[in-house]
């Protein structure tokens, strides 16, 4: 698990400076605090910062292959590497390490990109083939691991695990991409290949990009989520999930799990404990505010499974103080504080000496656990039996209050009628419109660049070919997977907050075999009326006490607005949002923001629309200050000695001499 970065020029005589590479390595050192390595080739340079998980003494990168001369920098894990290595060994391939990095390079050298289909894991890598002057960038199926790149006018490609590595190179500058920001203010995250920075692209989940001699020659999706009906269900859920957990416990370092107190992480933890011979360590976020706190449930699960449990309590002050760090790591405006406690949690995990944690992420998308799926069911019901739908409306979003009977006509209007005629994005219109409230605070000249429906229109144009053949619920599931899980939950709330502390998250539900199984299950095995995750609950009932297996979902949330106001609030908040602070970025309308601030200060903010707006504004201000217009001179070079140094330029010079 690591961070990777590099620069490749179209022409082999062009120079890539070591200083630029050292700055890039330093910018992502948090991803791989154990050390770094670099490879210098003619007109090319690649770096890797390493978090050692497999073959600790020998698994350093970059690695090169003889005699082809290809070089790999690689971030992530291929869990089935021992099986694949054994197979290659039978084919006569010799290995120097037991690390998955070497396995991936050998496989690529032998089988090319067809090898991707056989990799089970979460990874992003850059494969440099100097004989063709070809750089291939690849990202895993669900987009667990990030990968950014930018093309320069001279055809050079600059890439990195995080955009800050690109900026540190001095070859790419940070200016806002308002379409990417618009995606956040509509869908909660920028949809790949877009990012929040102009000219900086992401390799989409399950895709690859091939650059050759100065231009992109291939952009291809090598895996995409499909909902095949009425094909037969593949495999048995328990067997598949157990195997996925078993594979994700593979590491040469201790592995822990996150416990939210809900069904998904409890199930993963129970299965993980059954697969290991030592006492598992579990970690949870708790809150002072009882409305968010799930401590008692978490402790009950830990007791029932018999883990060694750690709790990190996030106070309001912690949330406000840490928010800027989280924005810096996420590299995007955020409309929720939910990633912050997970950032604090990862820090604690690291302090406890754990570098790998498994979590329940993905279960709600695969087994339709979110309330948004129930909205779809209720909207359908509303067409046939409006009274019954209105009655059931009281059962969803119970955590938002008020009591079901006091919800009145507004709830019905917003949840049952909004978007109900929209065949494609109907499930997500209510949320998108509520989120888009933040755009009403934009300065008029900026608002012009983000017209009301642009983000949704782009999404409509880019829907996968089979989308039209899926059911409403399957479409909603795809939208959750592609517009929320990958751009937000796995990024700002996943990779970025854990890798900020060199902690690797692993997601047993996001094994492509588990997805293939879940996607083929009949709808009622996922959502039956108002009961979610039916098949998972059945499995949970076998391995967990019934009180846990039957528990109704409580979504993970953190205090949103209150941490930033009142006596205990940090000073910088009012500074960033003052007329002078707003004028500095020129993004927001002073008068409207003033109105919102007044409500925030008075503690009157009640709804998601206002809290998302407030956080969107605040985080955009932080993001702008942190990145936009910042010179590469502000990025320090890596000062440690590299653990690997491949210098082909020097080698060639010596040979000539």
């Amino acid at each position, binding site marked *: 698990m690591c961070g990777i970065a590099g620069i490749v020029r179209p022409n082999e005589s062009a120079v890539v400076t070591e200083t630029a590479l050292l700055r890039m390595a330093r910018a992502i050192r948090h991803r791989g605090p154990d050390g770094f390595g670099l490879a210098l080739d003619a007109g090319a340079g690649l770096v890797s910062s390493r978090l050692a998980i497999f073959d600790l003494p020998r698994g350093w990168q970059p690695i090169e292959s003889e005699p082809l001369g290809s070089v790999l920098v690689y971030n992530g894990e291929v869990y089935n590497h021992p099986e694949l290595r054994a197979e290659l060994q039978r084919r006569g391939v010799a290995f120097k390490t037991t690390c998955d990095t070497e396995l991936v390079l050998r496989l690529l050298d032998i089988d090319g990109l067809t090898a991707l289909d056989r990799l089970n894991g979460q990874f992003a890598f850059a494969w440099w083939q100097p004989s063709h002057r070809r750089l291939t960038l690849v990202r895993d199926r669900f987009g667990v691991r990030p990968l950014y790149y930018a093309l320069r006018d001279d055809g050079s490609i600059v890439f990195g695990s995080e955009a800050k590595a690109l900026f540190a190179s001095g070859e790419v500058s940070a200016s806002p991409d308002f379409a990417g920001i618009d995606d956040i203010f509509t869908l909660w995250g920028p949809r790949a290949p877009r990012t929040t920075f102009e000219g900086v692209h992401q390799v989409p989940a399950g895709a690859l990009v091939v650059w050759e001699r100065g231009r992109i020659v291939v952009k291809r999706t090598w895996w995409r989520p499909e909902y095949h009906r009425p094909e037969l269900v593949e495999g048995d859920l328990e067997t598949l999930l157990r195997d996925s957990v078993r594979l994700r416990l593979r590491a040469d370092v201790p592995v822990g799990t996150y416990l939210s107190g809900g069904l998904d992480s409890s199930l993963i933890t129970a299965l993980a404990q059954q697969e290991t011979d030592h006492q598992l360590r579990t970690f949870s976020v708790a809150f002072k505010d009882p409305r968010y706190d799930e401590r008692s449930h978490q402790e009950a699960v830990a007791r029932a499974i018999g883990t060694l449990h750690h709790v990190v309590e996030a106070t309001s002050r912690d949330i406000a103080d840490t928010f800027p760090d989280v924005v810096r790591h996420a590299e995007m405006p955020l409309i929720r504080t939910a990633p912050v406690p997970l950032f604090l949690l990862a820090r604690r995990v690291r302090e406890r000496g754990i570098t790998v944690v498994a979590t329940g992420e993905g279960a709600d998308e695969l087994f339709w656990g979110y309330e948004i799926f129930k909205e779809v069911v209720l909207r359908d019901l509303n067409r046939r039996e409006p009274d019954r739908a209105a009655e059931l409306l009281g059962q969803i979003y119970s955590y*938002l*209050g*008020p009591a079901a*009977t*006091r*919800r*009145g*006509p*507004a*709830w019905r*209007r*917003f*949840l049952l009628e909004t978007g109900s005629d929209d065949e494609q994005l109907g499930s997500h219109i209510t949320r998108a419109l*509520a989120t888009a*409230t933040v755009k*009403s*605070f934009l300065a008029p000249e900026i608002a012009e660049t983000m017209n009301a429906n642009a983000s949704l229109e782009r999404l409509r144009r880019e829907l996968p070919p089979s989308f039209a053949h899926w059911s409403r619920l399957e479409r909603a599931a795809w939208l959750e997977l592609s517009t929320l899980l990958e751009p937000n939950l796995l990024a700002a709330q996943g990779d970025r907050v854990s890798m900020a502390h060199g902690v690797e998250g692993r997601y047993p539900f996001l094994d492509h075999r588990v997805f293939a199984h879940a996607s083929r299950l009949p709808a009622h095995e996922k959502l039956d009326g108002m009961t979610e995750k039916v098949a998972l609950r059945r499995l949970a009932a076998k391995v967990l006490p019934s009180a846990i297996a039957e528990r109704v979902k409580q979504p993970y949330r953190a205090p949103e607005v209150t941490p930033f106001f009142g006596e205990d609030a940090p000073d910088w908040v009012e500074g960033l949002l003052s007329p002078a602070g707003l004028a500095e970025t020129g993004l927001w309308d002073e*008068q*409207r923001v003033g*109105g*919102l601030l*007044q*409500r925030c200060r008075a503690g*009157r903010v*009640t*709804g*998601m*629309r206002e809290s998302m707006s407030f956080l969107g504004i605040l985080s955009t201000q932080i993001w702008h200050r942190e990145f936009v217009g910042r010179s590469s001179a502000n990025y320090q070079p890596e000062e440690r000695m590299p653990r690997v140094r491949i210098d082909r330029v020097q080698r060639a010079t010596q040979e000539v001499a």
Partner: protein
Amino acid sequence: MSEGNGVRIDMRDYIEENFLYLYPGIALKDEDDFLTLGIVDSLGFVELVGEVQSRYGIPVEDIEITEENFGSIAAIERYVERKRTAA
């Protein structure tokens, strides 16, 4: 000047301060429907009901939380008047 006008003024101030600041382009008339205009969302509606309840000391029954009673400034005025008369 009846008390009803007081409700109208109170509610207009309240709506302007808490919801309309976001929509400077909207010139809200007393009969305009909050939900249709989209200036009050589902949670805002609950906030509005709470405001009427506490400001005028009127216990609002679940069954009374309707657009007919809370959907516009004029609707709220009529509702408050009716409740006061009944009390």
